[in-house]
Protein backbone atom coordinates (compact mmCIF):
# COMPACT_ATOMS: atom_id res chain seq x y z
CA UNK A 1 0.00 0.00 0.00
CA UNK A 2 1.25 3.44 -0.94
CA UNK A 3 1.87 6.33 1.39
CA UNK A 4 0.06 8.94 -0.61
CA UNK A 5 -0.62 12.05 1.34
CA UNK A 6 -3.87 13.81 0.63
CA UNK A 7 -4.47 17.41 1.54
CA UNK A 8 -7.75 19.21 1.39
CA UNK A 9 -8.83 22.74 0.68
CA UNK A 10 -12.39 23.97 0.89
CA UNK A 11 -14.09 26.46 -1.41
CA UNK A 12 -17.07 28.07 0.24
CA UNK A 13 -19.37 31.03 -0.30
CA UNK A 14 -23.00 31.90 -0.86
CA UNK A 15 -25.42 30.38 -3.33
CA UNK A 16 -24.31 30.81 -6.96
CA UNK A 17 -21.05 32.57 -6.07
CA UNK A 18 -19.19 30.30 -8.51
CA UNK A 19 -17.81 27.55 -6.26
CA UNK A 20 -18.54 24.71 -8.66
CA UNK A 21 -17.14 26.75 -11.53
CA UNK A 22 -13.97 27.53 -9.58
CA UNK A 23 -13.22 23.87 -8.88
CA UNK A 24 -14.24 22.79 -12.37
CA UNK A 25 -11.77 25.24 -13.90
CA UNK A 26 -8.74 23.84 -12.10
CA UNK A 27 -9.57 20.21 -11.36
CA UNK A 28 -7.88 17.51 -13.42
CA UNK A 29 -10.94 15.32 -13.10
CA UNK A 30 -14.41 16.29 -14.08
CA UNK A 31 -15.85 17.68 -10.90
CA UNK A 32 -17.84 15.05 -9.12
CA UNK A 33 -20.72 17.08 -7.92
CA UNK A 34 -24.13 16.40 -6.58
CA UNK A 35 -26.13 18.99 -8.39
CA UNK A 36 -29.77 19.16 -9.09
CA UNK A 37 -32.28 21.32 -10.85
CA UNK A 38 -33.55 24.22 -8.85
CA UNK A 39 -37.20 24.04 -7.98
CA UNK A 40 -37.94 27.11 -5.92
CA UNK A 41 -38.68 30.30 -7.86
CA UNK A 42 -36.74 32.55 -5.53
CA UNK A 43 -33.53 30.75 -6.27
CA UNK A 44 -34.03 30.48 -9.99
CA UNK A 45 -31.18 32.67 -11.06
CA UNK A 46 -29.55 29.64 -12.59
CA UNK A 47 -30.45 26.11 -13.55
CA UNK A 48 -28.58 23.88 -11.14
CA UNK A 49 -27.33 24.05 -7.59
CA UNK A 50 -24.93 21.92 -5.57
CA UNK A 51 -26.77 19.92 -2.94
CA UNK A 52 -23.98 18.21 -1.04
CA UNK A 53 -20.59 19.26 -2.29
CA UNK A 54 -18.23 19.38 -5.22
CA UNK A 55 -15.13 17.32 -5.34
CA UNK A 56 -12.12 18.12 -7.52
CA UNK A 57 -8.56 16.95 -7.56
CA UNK A 58 -5.05 18.06 -8.45
CA UNK A 59 -2.36 15.40 -8.41
CA UNK A 60 1.02 16.80 -7.44
CA UNK A 61 3.03 13.62 -7.87
CA UNK A 62 2.65 9.98 -7.07
CA UNK A 63 2.56 10.57 -3.37
CA UNK A 64 0.77 13.86 -2.96
CA UNK A 65 -2.77 14.70 -3.99
CA UNK A 66 -4.74 17.88 -3.36
CA UNK A 67 -8.51 17.63 -3.03
CA UNK A 68 -10.74 20.61 -3.51
CA UNK A 69 -14.11 20.46 -1.83
CA UNK A 70 -16.84 22.93 -2.67
CA UNK A 71 -19.59 23.46 -0.15
CA UNK A 72 -23.24 23.53 -1.08
CA UNK A 73 -24.52 27.08 -1.26
CA UNK A 74 -28.02 26.57 0.00
CA UNK A 75 -28.61 26.96 3.70
CA UNK A 76 -30.47 23.72 4.13
CA UNK A 77 -27.34 21.76 3.34
CA UNK A 78 -25.17 23.52 5.87
CA UNK A 79 -24.86 20.32 7.88
CA UNK A 80 -22.15 19.50 5.33
CA UNK A 81 -19.98 22.45 6.26
CA UNK A 82 -18.53 21.17 9.46
CA UNK A 83 -17.95 17.76 7.94
CA UNK A 84 -16.12 19.30 5.02
CA UNK A 85 -14.01 21.58 7.14
CA UNK A 86 -12.43 18.72 9.08
CA UNK A 87 -8.71 18.55 8.44
CA UNK A 88 -8.60 21.25 5.79
CA UNK A 89 -5.33 22.99 5.04
CA UNK A 90 -7.03 26.26 4.25
CA UNK A 91 -10.18 27.67 2.71
CA UNK A 92 -11.36 30.13 0.12
CA UNK A 93 -14.45 32.26 0.57
CA UNK A 94 -15.88 33.13 -2.83
CA UNK A 95 -17.88 36.32 -2.99
CA UNK A 96 -20.39 37.03 -5.73
CA UNK A 97 -19.13 40.54 -6.52
CA UNK A 98 -22.26 41.45 -8.47
CA UNK A 99 -24.85 40.51 -5.87
CA UNK A 100 -24.57 42.66 -2.75
CA UNK A 101 -27.63 40.97 -1.33
CA UNK A 102 -25.37 37.96 -0.67
CA UNK A 103 -22.61 39.85 1.17
CA UNK A 104 -24.13 39.47 4.59
CA UNK A 105 -24.42 35.74 4.11
CA UNK A 106 -20.86 35.55 2.81
CA UNK A 107 -19.72 37.18 6.03
CA UNK A 108 -21.71 34.67 8.09
CA UNK A 109 -20.22 31.78 6.16
CA UNK A 110 -16.75 33.17 6.72
CA UNK A 111 -17.33 33.43 10.46
CA UNK A 112 -18.75 29.94 10.62
CA UNK A 113 -15.76 28.41 8.87
CA UNK A 114 -13.31 30.34 10.98
CA UNK A 115 -14.96 28.90 14.04
CA UNK A 116 -14.54 25.36 12.71
CA UNK A 117 -10.83 25.60 12.14
CA UNK A 118 -8.10 28.19 12.69
CA UNK A 119 -6.60 27.55 9.26
CA UNK A 120 -5.56 30.34 6.89
CA UNK A 121 -8.06 31.58 4.34
CA UNK A 122 -8.41 34.10 1.54
CA UNK A 123 -11.41 35.94 0.18
CA UNK A 124 -11.88 35.79 -3.60
CA UNK A 125 -14.07 38.45 -5.17
CA UNK A 126 -15.52 36.45 -8.02
CA UNK A 127 -17.13 37.53 -11.31
CA UNK A 128 -14.77 40.49 -11.66
CA UNK A 129 -15.28 40.21 -15.43
CA UNK A 130 -18.82 41.51 -15.05
CA UNK A 131 -19.67 45.13 -15.41
CA UNK A 132 -21.50 45.46 -12.11
CA UNK A 133 -18.79 43.83 -10.05
CA UNK A 134 -17.90 45.61 -6.83
CA UNK A 135 -14.22 46.41 -6.53
CA UNK A 136 -11.93 44.46 -4.24
CA UNK A 137 -11.37 47.53 -2.06
CA UNK A 138 -15.07 48.18 -1.60
CA UNK A 139 -15.71 44.53 -0.86
CA UNK A 140 -13.09 44.52 1.87
CA UNK A 141 -14.93 47.31 3.62
CA UNK A 142 -18.42 46.00 2.94
CA UNK A 143 -17.53 42.60 4.33
CA UNK A 144 -15.34 43.94 7.14
CA UNK A 145 -12.37 41.77 6.16
CA UNK A 146 -9.46 42.06 8.57
CA UNK A 147 -6.25 43.71 7.41
CA UNK A 148 -4.12 40.59 7.46
CA UNK A 149 -6.47 38.68 5.18
CA UNK A 150 -6.13 38.82 1.39
CA UNK A 151 -9.07 39.89 -0.75
CA UNK A 152 -8.27 38.83 -4.32
CA UNK A 153 -9.95 39.60 -7.62
CA UNK A 154 -11.20 36.44 -9.29
CA UNK A 155 -12.84 35.18 -12.45
CA UNK A 156 -13.72 31.57 -11.77
CA UNK A 157 -14.01 30.72 -15.45
CA UNK A 158 -10.39 31.77 -16.02
CA UNK A 159 -7.72 29.21 -15.15
CA UNK A 160 -4.96 31.74 -14.52
CA UNK A 161 -7.19 33.63 -12.13
CA UNK A 162 -8.12 30.49 -10.20
CA UNK A 163 -4.45 29.49 -10.02
CA UNK A 164 -3.57 32.88 -8.58
CA UNK A 165 -6.16 32.53 -5.82
CA UNK A 166 -4.94 29.05 -4.90
CA UNK A 167 -1.34 30.23 -4.87
CA UNK A 168 -2.15 33.19 -2.67
CA UNK A 169 -3.84 30.86 -0.21
CA UNK A 170 -0.79 28.58 -0.21
CA UNK A 171 1.48 31.59 0.39
CA UNK A 172 -0.69 32.55 3.35
CA UNK A 173 -0.37 29.01 4.66
CA UNK A 174 3.41 29.21 4.34
CA UNK A 175 3.51 32.53 6.13
CA UNK A 176 1.46 31.12 8.94
CA UNK A 177 3.78 28.12 9.23
CA UNK A 178 6.83 30.36 9.35
CA UNK A 179 5.25 32.62 11.94
CA UNK A 180 4.34 29.66 14.14
CA UNK A 181 7.80 28.25 13.83
CA UNK A 182 9.35 31.57 14.78
CA UNK A 183 7.05 31.71 17.78
CA UNK A 184 8.05 28.29 19.06
CA UNK A 185 11.74 29.10 18.92
Amino acid at each position, binding site marked *: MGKVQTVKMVVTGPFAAGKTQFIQTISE*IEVVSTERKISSESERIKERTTVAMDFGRITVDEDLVL*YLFGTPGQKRFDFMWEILSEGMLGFIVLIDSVRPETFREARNILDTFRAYAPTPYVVAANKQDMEDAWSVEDLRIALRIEDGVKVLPCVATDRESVKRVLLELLYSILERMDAEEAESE
Partner: protein
Amino acid sequence: MALKGNLRDFSITQLLNLINLARKTGTLTVERSSERADLCFREGKLVYASLGNQHNRLDQILLKAGRLTTEQTRLIQAQVNATDDKELGLWLINAGYVTQKDILQSVRQHMLEIVYQLFTWTDGKFRFEPNQLPPPERITVPIGLENVIIEGTRRMKEWEQLQDELPDLDMALRFTDRPGTSLRNISLSIEEWRVISFINPRNTIRQIAQATNMSEFQIRKIVYGMLQAGLVELVRPEGREVAPPSRGGERREAPLPPPAQRPPAVKRSVVMRLIDRIKQL
Protein backbone atom coordinates in the same frame (compact mmCIF):
# COMPACT_ATOMS: atom_id res chain seq x y z
CA MET B 1 -51.84 -18.15 21.79
CA ALA B 2 -48.60 -16.38 22.50
CA LEU B 3 -46.42 -15.52 19.58
CA LYS B 4 -43.00 -15.70 21.21
CA GLY B 5 -39.65 -17.13 20.26
CA ASN B 6 -36.22 -16.52 18.85
CA LEU B 7 -35.29 -15.36 15.38
CA ARG B 8 -32.90 -18.30 15.19
CA ASP B 9 -35.93 -20.55 14.91
CA PHE B 10 -38.47 -18.31 13.26
CA SER B 11 -37.02 -15.59 11.04
CA ILE B 12 -38.22 -12.05 10.46
CA THR B 13 -39.33 -13.07 6.99
CA GLN B 14 -41.49 -15.82 8.42
CA LEU B 15 -42.90 -13.53 11.11
CA LEU B 16 -43.87 -10.83 8.63
CA ASN B 17 -45.41 -13.41 6.37
CA LEU B 18 -47.52 -14.68 9.22
CA ILE B 19 -48.61 -11.21 10.29
CA ASN B 20 -49.48 -10.36 6.71
CA LEU B 21 -51.45 -13.51 5.98
CA ALA B 22 -53.32 -13.49 9.29
CA ARG B 23 -54.02 -9.72 8.98
CA LYS B 24 -52.81 -9.27 12.52
CA THR B 25 -53.08 -6.17 14.69
CA GLY B 26 -50.55 -5.63 17.47
CA THR B 27 -46.92 -4.91 18.31
CA LEU B 28 -43.93 -7.10 17.52
CA THR B 29 -40.97 -6.50 19.80
CA VAL B 30 -37.55 -7.91 18.96
CA GLU B 31 -34.61 -7.70 21.34
CA ARG B 32 -30.99 -8.67 21.03
CA SER B 33 -28.32 -7.74 23.59
CA SER B 34 -28.86 -4.01 24.10
CA GLU B 35 -30.95 -3.39 21.01
CA ARG B 36 -34.70 -3.34 20.77
CA ALA B 37 -37.08 -2.81 17.89
CA ASP B 38 -40.85 -2.37 17.98
CA LEU B 39 -43.02 -2.82 14.93
CA CYS B 40 -46.73 -2.07 15.08
CA PHE B 41 -49.26 -3.54 12.68
CA ARG B 42 -52.87 -2.85 11.91
CA GLU B 43 -54.73 -5.56 10.03
CA GLY B 44 -51.55 -6.94 8.56
CA LYS B 45 -50.06 -3.60 7.55
CA LEU B 46 -47.01 -2.08 9.19
CA VAL B 47 -48.04 1.27 10.70
CA TYR B 48 -45.19 2.25 12.99
CA ALA B 49 -41.59 1.28 13.74
CA SER B 50 -39.03 2.33 16.29
CA LEU B 51 -35.52 1.19 17.04
CA GLY B 52 -34.09 1.64 20.52
CA ASN B 53 -30.78 3.14 19.55
CA GLN B 54 -32.03 5.43 16.79
CA HIS B 55 -33.64 8.84 16.50
CA ASN B 56 -37.32 7.99 16.45
CA ARG B 57 -38.72 11.42 17.19
CA LEU B 58 -40.22 13.34 14.31
CA ASP B 59 -37.78 16.23 14.36
CA GLN B 60 -34.87 13.78 14.32
CA ILE B 61 -36.45 11.80 11.50
CA LEU B 62 -36.87 14.98 9.45
CA LEU B 63 -33.32 16.02 10.25
CA LYS B 64 -32.00 12.70 9.06
CA ALA B 65 -34.10 12.94 5.91
CA GLY B 66 -32.58 16.35 5.19
CA ARG B 67 -35.93 18.15 5.55
CA LEU B 68 -34.75 20.17 8.53
CA THR B 69 -31.35 21.53 9.45
CA THR B 70 -29.70 21.03 12.83
CA GLU B 71 -30.16 24.71 13.47
CA GLN B 72 -33.88 24.45 12.73
CA THR B 73 -34.35 21.48 15.02
CA ARG B 74 -32.64 23.43 17.78
CA LEU B 75 -34.95 26.38 17.30
CA ILE B 76 -37.96 24.11 17.12
CA GLN B 77 -37.06 22.27 20.30
CA ALA B 78 -36.93 25.59 22.09
CA GLN B 79 -40.32 26.65 20.81
CA VAL B 80 -42.56 23.64 20.83
CA ASN B 81 -43.17 20.46 22.78
CA ALA B 82 -41.29 18.03 20.58
CA THR B 83 -42.45 14.85 22.32
CA ASP B 84 -45.87 14.79 20.66
CA ASP B 85 -45.12 14.00 17.03
CA LYS B 86 -48.58 14.81 15.75
CA GLU B 87 -48.63 18.16 17.45
CA LEU B 88 -45.11 18.88 16.27
CA GLY B 89 -46.01 17.83 12.72
CA LEU B 90 -48.96 20.21 12.61
CA TRP B 91 -46.86 22.99 14.00
CA LEU B 92 -44.12 22.41 11.41
CA ILE B 93 -46.63 22.41 8.57
CA ASN B 94 -48.31 25.57 9.83
CA ALA B 95 -44.98 27.30 10.33
CA GLY B 96 -44.08 26.40 6.73
CA TYR B 97 -41.01 24.30 7.56
CA VAL B 98 -42.24 21.18 5.78
CA THR B 99 -45.29 19.83 3.97
CA GLN B 100 -47.47 16.98 5.07
CA LYS B 101 -46.03 14.98 2.19
CA ASP B 102 -42.48 15.58 3.48
CA ILE B 103 -43.48 14.24 6.87
CA LEU B 104 -45.23 11.14 5.58
CA GLN B 105 -42.40 10.32 3.18
CA SER B 106 -39.74 10.76 5.84
CA VAL B 107 -41.61 8.68 8.41
CA ARG B 108 -42.23 5.98 5.82
CA GLN B 109 -38.54 5.93 4.90
CA HIS B 110 -37.57 5.76 8.54
CA MET B 111 -39.92 2.82 9.15
CA LEU B 112 -38.63 0.94 6.13
CA GLU B 113 -35.03 1.43 7.20
CA ILE B 114 -35.82 -0.12 10.56
CA VAL B 115 -37.62 -3.16 9.13
CA TYR B 116 -34.92 -3.76 6.56
CA GLN B 117 -32.35 -3.58 9.30
CA LEU B 118 -34.25 -6.27 11.17
CA PHE B 119 -33.80 -8.61 8.24
CA THR B 120 -30.11 -8.70 9.11
CA TRP B 121 -30.82 -9.90 12.65
CA THR B 122 -30.40 -13.63 12.72
CA ASP B 123 -30.65 -13.89 16.46
CA GLY B 124 -32.91 -12.20 19.00
CA LYS B 125 -35.99 -12.77 21.16
CA PHE B 126 -39.34 -11.72 19.78
CA ARG B 127 -42.87 -11.48 21.11
CA PHE B 128 -46.08 -10.29 19.57
CA GLU B 129 -48.53 -8.39 21.74
CA PRO B 130 -51.96 -8.59 20.07
CA ASN B 131 -54.00 -5.39 19.74
CA GLN B 132 -51.29 -3.19 21.15
CA LEU B 133 -50.88 -0.12 18.94
CA PRO B 134 -48.39 2.77 19.07
CA PRO B 135 -49.02 5.60 21.52
CA PRO B 136 -51.53 8.11 20.14
CA GLU B 137 -48.98 10.92 19.79
CA ARG B 138 -47.02 8.99 17.16
CA ILE B 139 -47.56 9.41 13.43
CA THR B 140 -48.53 6.18 11.68
CA VAL B 141 -48.15 5.35 8.00
CA PRO B 142 -49.66 2.11 6.66
CA ILE B 143 -47.25 0.04 4.55
CA GLY B 144 -48.22 -3.25 2.90
CA LEU B 145 -45.93 -6.11 3.85
CA GLU B 146 -45.64 -7.97 0.54
CA ASN B 147 -43.12 -5.62 -0.98
CA VAL B 148 -41.32 -5.21 2.33
CA ILE B 149 -40.79 -8.96 2.47
CA ILE B 150 -39.52 -9.14 -1.10
CA GLU B 151 -37.16 -6.20 -0.67
CA GLY B 152 -36.06 -7.36 2.77
CA THR B 153 -35.20 -10.81 1.49
CA ARG B 154 -33.26 -9.30 -1.37
CA ARG B 155 -31.32 -7.15 1.06
CA MET B 156 -30.67 -10.08 3.33
CA LYS B 157 -28.98 -11.91 0.48
CA GLU B 158 -27.05 -8.80 -0.37
CA TRP B 159 -26.10 -8.45 3.27
CA GLU B 160 -24.73 -11.96 3.44
CA GLN B 161 -22.72 -11.27 0.34
CA LEU B 162 -21.46 -7.95 1.72
CA GLN B 163 -20.39 -9.60 4.93
CA ASP B 164 -18.26 -11.97 2.94
CA GLU B 165 -16.77 -9.19 0.85
CA LEU B 166 -16.20 -6.72 3.64
CA PRO B 167 -15.88 -8.61 6.89
CA ASP B 168 -14.01 -6.18 9.06
CA LEU B 169 -15.60 -2.87 10.00
CA ASP B 170 -12.58 -2.01 12.13
CA MET B 171 -10.50 -1.31 9.06
CA ALA B 172 -10.04 2.27 7.88
CA LEU B 173 -10.27 3.73 4.38
CA ARG B 174 -8.21 6.03 2.27
CA PHE B 175 -8.53 7.44 -1.21
CA THR B 176 -6.71 5.41 -3.82
CA ASP B 177 -3.72 6.84 -5.59
CA ARG B 178 -4.91 6.10 -9.08
CA PRO B 179 -6.02 9.52 -10.19
CA GLY B 180 -8.26 10.19 -13.09
CA THR B 181 -9.58 6.78 -13.88
CA SER B 182 -12.70 5.71 -12.10
CA LEU B 183 -13.90 8.97 -10.60
CA ARG B 184 -15.45 10.20 -13.80
CA ASN B 185 -19.17 9.98 -14.11
CA ILE B 186 -19.65 8.77 -10.58
CA SER B 187 -22.77 10.24 -9.18
CA LEU B 188 -22.96 10.07 -5.44
CA SER B 189 -25.82 10.43 -3.01
CA ILE B 190 -25.69 12.75 -0.02
CA GLU B 191 -25.15 9.71 2.20
CA GLU B 192 -22.16 8.71 0.12
CA TRP B 193 -20.75 12.21 0.25
CA ARG B 194 -21.07 12.16 4.00
CA VAL B 195 -19.03 8.97 4.13
CA ILE B 196 -16.48 10.42 1.70
CA SER B 197 -15.86 13.39 3.88
CA PHE B 198 -15.00 11.16 6.86
CA ILE B 199 -12.54 9.04 4.92
CA ASN B 200 -9.25 9.22 6.67
CA PRO B 201 -6.80 6.50 7.70
CA ARG B 202 -7.55 7.35 11.33
CA ASN B 203 -11.27 6.59 11.14
CA THR B 204 -12.49 3.01 11.11
CA ILE B 205 -15.50 2.12 9.02
CA ARG B 206 -17.40 1.49 12.23
CA GLN B 207 -16.62 4.98 13.48
CA ILE B 208 -17.72 6.49 10.21
CA ALA B 209 -21.01 4.61 10.54
CA GLN B 210 -21.49 5.98 14.05
CA ALA B 211 -20.61 9.51 13.08
CA THR B 212 -22.97 9.47 10.11
CA ASN B 213 -25.75 7.61 11.92
CA MET B 214 -25.73 4.74 9.48
CA SER B 215 -26.55 1.11 10.09
CA GLU B 216 -23.93 -1.56 9.45
CA PHE B 217 -25.83 -2.52 6.36
CA GLN B 218 -25.84 0.98 4.93
CA ILE B 219 -22.18 1.60 5.60
CA ARG B 220 -21.15 -1.76 4.23
CA LYS B 221 -23.11 -1.15 1.09
CA ILE B 222 -21.66 2.30 0.52
CA VAL B 223 -18.10 1.29 1.31
CA TYR B 224 -18.41 -1.79 -0.85
CA GLY B 225 -19.59 0.36 -3.75
CA MET B 226 -16.67 2.74 -3.30
CA LEU B 227 -14.20 -0.12 -3.13
CA GLN B 228 -15.64 -1.55 -6.33
CA ALA B 229 -15.41 1.84 -8.01
CA GLY B 230 -11.74 2.04 -7.03
CA LEU B 231 -12.35 5.27 -5.16
CA VAL B 232 -11.04 4.00 -1.82
CA GLU B 233 -9.06 1.15 -0.40
CA LEU B 234 -8.89 -0.60 2.96
CA VAL B 235 -6.05 0.20 5.35
CA ARG B 236 -5.26 -0.58 8.95
CA PRO B 237 -6.42 2.31 11.12
CA GLU B 238 -3.70 4.72 12.14
CA GLY B 239 -3.03 5.96 15.67
CA ARG B 240 -5.67 7.41 17.94
CA GLU B 241 -9.36 7.01 17.45
CA VAL B 242 -10.69 10.24 16.07
CA ALA B 243 -13.82 10.86 14.10
CA PRO B 244 -14.71 14.36 13.01
CA PRO B 245 -17.79 15.72 14.71
CA SER B 246 -20.89 16.30 12.69
CA ARG B 247 -23.77 18.50 13.62
CA GLY B 248 -26.04 15.85 12.20
CA GLY B 249 -24.99 13.17 14.67
CA GLU B 250 -26.19 14.51 17.96
CA ARG B 251 -26.45 11.36 20.01
CA ARG B 252 -22.86 10.38 20.53
CA GLU B 253 -21.89 9.68 24.14
CA ALA B 254 -18.73 11.66 24.72
CA PRO B 255 -18.40 14.85 22.71
CA LEU B 256 -15.45 14.68 20.35
CA PRO B 257 -12.95 17.51 20.44
CA PRO B 258 -13.75 20.30 17.99
CA PRO B 259 -11.70 20.22 14.80
CA ALA B 260 -10.09 23.47 15.86
CA GLN B 261 -7.89 21.47 18.21
CA ARG B 262 -6.63 19.20 15.49
CA PRO B 263 -4.91 21.13 12.73
CA PRO B 264 -3.57 18.79 10.06
CA ALA B 265 0.08 17.87 10.31
CA VAL B 266 1.24 19.15 6.96
CA LYS B 267 4.86 19.97 6.41
CA ARG B 268 6.23 23.08 4.82
CA SER B 269 7.75 20.99 2.03
CA VAL B 270 4.29 19.71 1.14
CA VAL B 271 3.03 23.25 0.72
CA MET B 272 6.06 24.05 -1.44
CA ARG B 273 5.28 21.10 -3.68
CA LEU B 274 1.67 22.19 -4.03
CA ILE B 275 2.83 25.66 -5.02
CA ASP B 276 5.19 24.31 -7.66
CA ARG B 277 2.52 22.08 -9.10
CA ILE B 278 -0.12 24.77 -9.36
CA LYS B 279 2.33 27.14 -11.00
CA GLN B 280 2.89 24.54 -13.72
CA LEU B 281 -0.80 24.00 -14.44
